[in-house]
């Protein structure tokens, strides 16, 4: 306990300070009332995101650039938490942060496959870097070299020495045979979550308890959505679903995933694990629209789990992790609003997918 107190005193104070800077559900609701994209950005400039948007001149004010600037705040939060967290917990936070590097890696791989259909006047790298998460010095990814390599095998060759090397070497055989990124992405996802779970399990005491609870909530959401999507949407076979999902989680058990793979009652499984989510059957009737809605509801469960971490004993890694995930979810809400406002989507069509405003009810 004593080491927990001294180890978490500084980071706890910092995270609490930053937590108080997160936008409230009321703030999100007010922002979503902005009539258009410029006024949304102007409102955001009066929030803690202001300093990140201040450097954007009016001529630069595109949705993509604005989103990129918002992500800088999340990147700063991660850097700061990684630096301040106790030594034994850093591998977990770094692995959690790697989620965005994984996203960058997928974006790079997709860009390589689609670059031939792009406007040749704009350099491929210039196009790609606009959508990459500003990962900074933490990144092990030679993104530019990969894009410039021009083909997937050459790009994957550049991953030697990175945490992705082994996984990619196994998955590349399938890519060569199928010329499809699906196996690469699945292999990367599975490897990421296995490593994250292993890092959480390596901790001890309160840290382990808090980390498995929060990381487990994230993992449950992903694992469950994978199983349901593979079954309902992609119609994969039982053995494929079993191999493309994870056998562990916090609430969702391996038996649940296997039951979904074998054609069991998905609604009953979701309801048993998440009693507050109702009407799953209705959502599954129209998977194209229903599955994203189900994902939103699961994300709200994660958000509640993270918010709950701030109650009770504060001297554990749960607080920093919860804060980072909440920051990410908040930025997801802001991205939804930016994209909705810039494409003039009707209010009713996007408000229902905002995560934080659900806390108003």
């Amino acid at each position, binding site marked *: 306990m004593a080491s927990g107190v001294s180890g978490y005193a500084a980071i706890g104070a910092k995270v609490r300070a930053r937590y108080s800077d997160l936008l409230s559900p009321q703030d999100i609701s007010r922002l979503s009332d902005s009539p258009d994209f410029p006024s949304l950005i102007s409102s955001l400039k009066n929030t803690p995101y202001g300093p990140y948007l201040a450097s954007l001149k009016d001529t630069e004010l595109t949705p993509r650039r604005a989103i990129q600037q918002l992500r800088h705040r999340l990147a700063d939060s991660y850097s700061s938490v990684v630096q301040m967290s106790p030594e034994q917990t850093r591998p977990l936070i770094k692995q959690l942060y790697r989620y965005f590097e994984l996203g960058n890696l997928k974006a790079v791989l997709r860009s390589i496959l689609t670059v031939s259909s792009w406007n040749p006047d704009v350099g491929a790298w210039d196009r790609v870097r606009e959508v990459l998460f500003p990962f900074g010095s933490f990144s092990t990814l030679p993104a530019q070299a990969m894009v410039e390599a021009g083909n997937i095998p050459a790009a994957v060759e550049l991953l030697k020495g990175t945490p992705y090397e082994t996984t990619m070497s196994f998955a590349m055989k399938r890519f060569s045979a199928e010329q499809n990124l699906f196996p690469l992405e699945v*292999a990367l996802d599975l490897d990421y979550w296995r490593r994250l779970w292993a890092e959480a399990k390596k901790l001890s005491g309160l840290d382990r308890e808090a980390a498995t609870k929060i990381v487990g909530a994230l993992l449950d959401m992903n694992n469950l959505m994978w199983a349901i999507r593979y079954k309902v949407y992609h119609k994969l076979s039982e053995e494929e679903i079993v*191999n493309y999902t994870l056998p562990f989680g916090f609430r969702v058990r391996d038996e649940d995933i296997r039951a979904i793979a074998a054609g069991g009652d998905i609604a009953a499984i979701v309801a048993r694990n998440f009693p507050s989510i109702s009407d799953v059957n209705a959502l599954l009737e129209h998977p194209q629209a229903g599955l994203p809605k189900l994902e939103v509801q699961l994300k709200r469960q994660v958000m509640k789990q993270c918010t709950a971490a701030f109650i009770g004993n504060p001297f554990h890694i749960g607080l920093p992790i919860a804060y980072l995930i909440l920051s990410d979810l908040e930025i997801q809400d802001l991205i939804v609003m930016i994209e909705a406002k810039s494409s003039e989507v009707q209010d009713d069509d996007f408000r229902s997918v905002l995560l934080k405003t659900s806390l108003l009810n």
Partner: protein
Amino acid sequence: MFFPREMTEVELIIPSKDLVAVTKVLSGRGVFHQVDSAFLGLESLGPSTWQEKAANYSTFERRIQAIMQTLGIAEEQKGSTEFDTIVELDTVRPTLERIESEVKGASDKYGAEKKRLEALEAQLKQLEPIAHLNFEVGGLRKSDHLHSILGVMKADTKVIERLDSIRVPHVLFELKRDAKDAVVWLLGSKNNSDELERAAKSAFLNPLTLPEEFSGTPQQAVEKTRKAIEESKQKGFELESQLSKFGGAHKAELQKLWWDAHVSRLMADAIARFGQLRHTYVVVGWVPSADMKLLSERLKQASKEILIEAVSAERTGHHEHVPVALLNNKWLKPIQNLVITYGRPSYGELDPTILVALTFPVLYGAMFGDLGQGLVMMLVGYLSHKKIFMKGLSSLGLLLVYCGFFASIFGALYGSIFGFEGHLIEEYLHFHFEPLWLSPLENILTILGFAIDAGIVILLFSYLLSLFNMARARDWAHFWFGHTGIIAICFYICFLTILNGLLGTTPIAPKIAAAISRIPLPFNILTPIFAFGVMFNSLFRNIAEGHRPLIEGGIAMYFVTSFMDLFESVISMLSNTLSFVRVGAFAVAHGGLSLAFFSLAGEEPTIGFWLTLLIGNIFIIGFEGLIVYIQTMRLHYYEILGKFFHGGGMRFEPLRLNSSQEEA
């Protein structure tokens, strides 16, 4: 000295005709941090041709690098002034093509032989895992009822278990496993071949693709393949020596070609990020103010019509967009590295390097006080800095010198020399050496109390630095109500009086706390007032900053979290203060560890005695020296820097042609 270098924002308008000359000045001096201003371009002009040029130079450079690599020629960077202008690709391309054509024959053969070797090695790799199986593997293909998949998958137990858990009847043998790969054999009924194939595929089981001509046992095939590999390697050596002859003939020519293409590519890259107007270019960036005058002169020499607008950056307010160039003092470099590991100062923030340069060696010396060992550490540090001894530690050499110096001073104060203290010095070294201050082993509680006092002084100083930073940033809400604001400092002072009350007249009671308690102020009234302030500082901050709502999550929840904030503050203050006890504790432990070696050595000054002490001293310098280093770093990162230093500054990355140019 106490802040990052002052920066000036520069905006240049350059006539098109002087573009290359100006870019040469900007890139060559290593003082200009470019800001991407390509968005300023006129749309009607279309996409910048410089992007295309940069891409072409990049491709050309890669071609040269490829041929240099083939011929085993190293790239050689030259001085930033050793180039005239951007080279025209049309003029240099024929030279490269001539060399390429000369080298092509041998290079292609060498490439083909390498590929053949790789294929043979891959084949051997596939065969080796099953080399121990004594059966006709070709027979697997002929089975009428069994579907068999022999392959390699990731050596992850969970993944293998997952594959083994499929519901289709099957048998899974794990034939071999190393850290990375597992060779497995999946067998099932031919009727279930689809399910088995799907399961294997989705578990990323890569089947071994044994050549069709494969016959006999795996052992026979392995021997045949190994022989072919030897032949291929021999042929590869012959072709390599032929290529190295070509390398000798074209070395100078290729190195010059590479340098020209490299510099041209860097300059084209920079120009592609300039804003392009109809007849001019707009360049935006940052320059250290001290270098501005010289840069302006050089720019005006390069272009008579250039327009330069320079504005110095204020240190107040937000500075996320201002790059941070730290002071380039080679004597402080190792200390600066320690600070940067924690965080790069932001532009308006106090650079704690000087402070850490003082506190780090002093705290280290206080924990590792020994005159002899300190001098040895200084010597090792110096030799390592000069790359004469322990070259791997050269970046830490100066730090070792500083720490060793203060360890020597504290050694004199503690009366310790190579672990000999008090009567041991006279008995074995035959001279008199009294501590100039006190012996930690004989004054344990005094040294612990002194360490806490030193900690209080350092913490109060850190709090004051935090106030200074916040005042400069005009962050008045945090200045008053932040975690290191005025209210928190006042509470810390009150907290010290409580600590004094608790420790009373014990020897470790901090004297500073006692002195504060004697100040005629009503601390029993002030303590709850400031505690109240700390408890509700977020509310006061919201009021000061105009944030609404003032309270989030309901009153009850707010009170609970506010109380937790107060509790956390008290715990932090206590742990931060007592954390410095370790300085005294390590000084004591140092003496204790030396005594342990004396017990092992015995009493008679034989060869064994001196050998034991020699090993003991090496152990203490290496092992305890490292532990004390970690403890000193921990004190700085958690207790000192965390109070006033936030970091997060953007790195100053000037344009430069030569990567060996010193970073500012």
